[in-house]
């Protein structure tokens, strides 16, 4: 167990590798209640978020989710999922934001500082709710098996990045077809008081199908194989999203939001370094902060690295000088006092069904 942004969480229940492989082969379940869950309601909620987020919120249909960044004039505060939920009342839209645990407090502080005098209410529902991710090729089967028939049909038919209210294990929930593992699956938000019931039901229903409870360790190796950036590692306050391959998270044209001018100039002036994948022949692991070199010259820095259980070797993500960032290019990583030979590889390292 470790302290993760103030949450006491398991790195693994038994083995990171076994939990990782169970998620790829059958299903993994993750208690991701540490993720911040914010609710934004009011007649002005859509216009307000539209003015603050890097993705379009205006025109977002009920039930749709989008990956977005939360920015100030000079920094990226977080990456998040914004979703439009069923209207609270006629003319009163309601939206949800799921943010990183480590950034929750400052994101809430920032958003509150930008609230208009009237028309928008912001509530931090993190402590009143819980969130369980069920991911893997059998995730939908497991989750739908715990829903009444009508809800099971609706959940089973969810398109990617959509959500629906549903009853699971007798409890009221919001279920979205989203995740952070590179697998098909869902994320389930329930009232905190229902968390134990829903967790136990999924665990009991899924175990015969190969589901395992997974900790933070497997969550990290799964997202790394899937080439997904993690705030605080790949993505930072001063990052250039275009250099990270996150250009799609920024809808600039005809829009104005905090930092939009800055992002316009980033888009027109490519950054010196770009995010790449690195693969190694060895299982010896390049980790965050290790220097990437060609000969004696440092050409980049590792942002995340691990043994990748599905790939069977060590992999990393790194920020690398643009001229070196060519697929197949040979680079070394300095791991403590020795060199580990690697090469630039495409992201993601793992693609489902691929």
């Amino acid at each position, binding site marked *: 167990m470790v302290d993760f942004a103030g949450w006491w969480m398991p*790195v*693994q229940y*038994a*083995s*990171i*590798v076994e939990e990782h492989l169970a998620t790829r082969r059958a299903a993994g379940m993750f208690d991701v209640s540490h993720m911040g869950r914010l609710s934004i309601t009011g007649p002005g909620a859509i216009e307000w978020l539209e003015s603050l987020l890097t993705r379009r919120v205006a025109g977002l249909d009920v039930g749709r989710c989008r990956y977005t960044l939360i920015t100030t004039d000079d920094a990226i505060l977080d990456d998040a999922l914004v979703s439009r939920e069923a209207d609270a009342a006629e003319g009163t839209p309601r939206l949800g934001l799921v943010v990183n645990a480590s950034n929750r407090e400052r994101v809430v502080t920032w958003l509150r500082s930008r609230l208009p005098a009237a028309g928008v209410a912001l509530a931090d529902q993190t402590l009143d709710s819980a969130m369980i991710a069920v991911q893997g090729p059998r995730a939908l089967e497991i989750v739908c098996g715990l829903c009444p028939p009508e809800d099971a049909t609706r959940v089973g038919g969810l398109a990617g990045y959509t959500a629906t209210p549903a009853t699971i294990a007798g409890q009221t929930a919001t279920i979205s077809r989203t995740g952070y593992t590179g697998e098909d699956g869902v994320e389930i938000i329930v009232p905190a008081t229902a968390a134990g019931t829903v967790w136990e039901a999924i665990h009991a229903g899924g175990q015969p199908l190969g589901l395992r409870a997974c900790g933070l*360790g497997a969550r990290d*190796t799964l997202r790394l194989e899937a080439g997904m950036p993690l705030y605080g590692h790949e993505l930072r306050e001063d990052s250039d999203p275009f250099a990270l391959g996150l250009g799609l998270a920024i809808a600039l044209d005809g829009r104005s939001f905090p930092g939009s001018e800055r992002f316009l100039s980033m888009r027109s002036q490519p950054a010196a370094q770009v995010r790449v994948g690195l693969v190694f022949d*060895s*299982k*010896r*692991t390049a*980790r965050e902060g290790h220097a990437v070199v060609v000969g004696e010259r440092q050409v980049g820095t590792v942002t995340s690295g*691990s*043994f990748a*259980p599905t790939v069977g070797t*060590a992999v990393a993500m790194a920020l690398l000088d643009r001229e070196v960032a060519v697929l197949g290019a040979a680079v070394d990583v300095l791991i*403590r006092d020795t060199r580990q030979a690697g090469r630039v590889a495409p992201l993601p390292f793992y693609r489902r069904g691929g």
Partner: protein
Amino acid sequence: MAAPRRYAPSHEWIRLEDDGTATIGISAYAVEALTDLVFMQLPDVGRRVKAGESFGEIESVKAVSDMYAPVAGEVVAVNTELPQRLETLGQDPYEAGWIVRIKPDTPAAVEGLLDQTAYDALLAKQSH
């Protein structure tokens, strides 16, 4: 008949052999605590190590850890098959899972390390 194992607080074990060398490995507790072992770096034969000096690395998915020489000496053998078969450490950490053999400068120094009872007591304290 080899002497009983002694332990360092950093979870290496060492055993004096009849030929005057000493075999070193890591305890079952250490293997269990590390979990998901992926890589081991061994020293070259002939390398001299001081007591408490790192003689190699063991890496799990989570993190990399040093392995420390419980006593000073010269490395006379390494278990070259082990890095390709790290699961051996979980199955048989005290025999097939040996890591290096050294010629201790002062064999009596081994007697100053933790015996099984003292090591078990250390583990009991750590688990609280």
